[in-house]
């Protein structure tokens, strides 16, 4: 076996059987990080001591004959937007440089309870605002498929850590595609669970009505196992759904789409989508048909306005959420020389601590919420949000899942779009509708675009609390492709 290339479920079995220790697996990943991360820059912070101590505890539990969970002892990369007690947590921003949270996020508590080993914190666009990880205050992450290209964003660090074999599991967050688009451009798997399925307690908020924490891995089953470990009600998040979590692991093992009705969203392909992306998507549609699914075309006419609605709703919520970063109780404080007022110190702190994309979005949100503009911008965007949700509801009356390409293009070059916000926003065109409605969706790899040899992702979307459908369909497509290729697509990534 290969300690760094094997999947999480394989590693967990080997650890449970005593074939290898969690400490050996953890050290192998720390060594890998030491060897490649200077070039990839997936991690902002590596907690070697904490990871090894946690691995030793798992090994001791096993030696004592305690029953271990399905991912016990397996290492994971954690997006730096989740609070982890005693470890730096920056959300990719200078305003939180050096901040050490005094508590664990709910998801971190659950990872620890599942005996999953947290290797460290991964890079991201500042406060999760971006589609390329170039907006991190700590420099970009590089795509392991081509180090000159972006790994997607905002969770580019988590996706790159998986694709570079620095971790077999990762946690991301998805507000408009920040799990799915990085998965698509790195040939990894990522799921945005149903809104409210995974608690947000301890997640640094971007847009509270859109943010959702989710699992990332290199195959569908590992993603399902991680999903099961983090999902479920938590009373500390008032939007957390108090209902049983769909059995996503059983669905991933089932992998049968015979009789499943699949809707191809007319508005999410064709014009604006790269030729090779469209080609691989068409092939995935053919695979679903061969596997016994019934694929029909459906129309969601208001999706055309999803991007515009999203880029009003998100900045509005973030302008309010980020007001808490004022330099008074924690984080950066600038200009407090005794002569300045509290407002002056706040403004100087925020000017110095936030990057340009964060400032743009705060100002757009401030504008959209201001008197005289509220109805035409934020109010109208909320109405369009209703219409988009209705489009989904109507579509799911006809089909079990919807599909589209995850992103319109493969990974672009670092620097190519960084100063053109509107071009950057277009990356999210296919992923955003799901966040607006609160549905769940998966991205999984379906091949390389012929023109550039870079990964393409398939997006599968399901209704709220229909997360199991994603895994059933995703696992079926993955199995068919592995049959064809003889391995997962990630195995074709260039050696680093």
């Amino acid at each position, binding site marked *: 076996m290969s300690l760094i290339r094997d999947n999480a479920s394989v590693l967990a079995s080997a650890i449970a059987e005593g074939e290898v220790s969690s400490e050996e697996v953890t050290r192998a990943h720390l060594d890998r990080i030491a060897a490649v991360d200077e070039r990839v820059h997936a991690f902002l912070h590596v907690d070697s001591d904490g990871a090894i101590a946690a691995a030793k505890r798992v090994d001791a539990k096993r030696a004592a004959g305690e029953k271990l969970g399905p991912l016990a002892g397996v290492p994971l990369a954690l997006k730096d937007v989740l609070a982890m007690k005693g470890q730096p947590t920056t959300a990719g921003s200078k305003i939180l440089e050096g901040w050490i949270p005094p508590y664990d996020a709910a998801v971190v508590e659950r990872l620890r309870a599942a005996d999953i080993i947290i290797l460290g914190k991964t890079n991201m666009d500042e406060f999760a605002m971006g589609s390329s990880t170039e907006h991190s205050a700590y420099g970009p992450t590089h795509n392991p498929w081509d180090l000159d290209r972006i790994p997607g964003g905002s969770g580019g660090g988590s996706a790159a850590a998986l694709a570079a074999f620095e971790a077999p599991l990762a946690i991301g967050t998805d507000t408009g595609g920040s799990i799915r688009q990085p998965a698509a451009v790195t040939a990894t798997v990522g799921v945005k669970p149903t809104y409210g399925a995974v608690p947000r307690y301890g997640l640094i908020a971007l847009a509270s009505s859109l943010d959702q924490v989710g699992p990332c891995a290199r195959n569908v089953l590992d993603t399902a196992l991680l999903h099961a470990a983090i999902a479920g009600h938590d009373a500390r998040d008032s939007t957390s759904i108090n209902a049983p979590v769909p059995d996503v692991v059983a669905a991933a093992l089932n992998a049968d789409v015979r009789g499943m009705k699949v809707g191809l969203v007319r508005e999410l392909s064709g014009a604006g989508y790269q030729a090779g992306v469209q080609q691989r998507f068409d092939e995935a549609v053919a695979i679903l048909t061969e596997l016994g699914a019934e694929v029909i075309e459906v129309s969601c006419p208001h999706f055309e306005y999803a991007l515009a609605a999203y880029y009003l709703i998100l900045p509005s919520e973030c302008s309010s959420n980020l007001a808490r970063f004022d330099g008074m109780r*924690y984080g950066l404080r600038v200009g407090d020389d005794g002569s300045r007022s509290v407002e002056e110190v706040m*403004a100087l702190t925020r000017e110095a601590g936030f990057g340009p994309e964060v400032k743009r979005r705060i*100002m757009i949100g401030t504008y959209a919420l201001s008197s005289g503009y509220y109805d035409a911008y934020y109010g109208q965007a*909320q109405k369009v949000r209703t219409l988009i949700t209705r489009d989904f509801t109507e579509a799911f009356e006809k089909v079990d899942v919807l599909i589209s390409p995850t992103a319109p293009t493969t990974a672009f070059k670092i620097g190519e779009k960084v100063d053109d*916000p509107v071009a950057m926003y277009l990356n999210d065109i296919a992923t955003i509708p799901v966040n607006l409605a609160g549905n769940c969706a998966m991205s999984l790899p379906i091949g390389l675009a012929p023109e550039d040899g870079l990964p393409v992702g398939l997006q599968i979307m399901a209704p709220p609390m229909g997360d199991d459908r994603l895994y059933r369909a995703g696992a079926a497509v993955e199995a068919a492709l592995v049959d064809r290729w003889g391995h997962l697509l990630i195995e074709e990534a260039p050696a680093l």
Partner: protein
Amino acid sequence: MTNISRADVAHLARLARLAIPEDQLDHYAEQLDVILQSVARVGEVAAADVPAMSHPVPLLNVFRDDVARPGLDREAAMAAAPAIEDDRFRVPRILDEE
């Protein structure tokens, strides 16, 4: 439909507590204008009778039982403070001198 001026950016920056330097106001004005023009498309949708949606799940106030439970101790809560005085957060003056 929009036309964001330098003065508009200065106003937004003041509302948002961002000390944007004078020499960057024009650059932000240009970018905010492009963004606002592209998102103004929401106005093309006829939605007068459509209810606004603020959240994907019904927002209900959730109460927990009124039982005392442990919280962060003072030391942990203050550990990240930029300035402390007598076990309290020290902040710059909040009132003008006069």
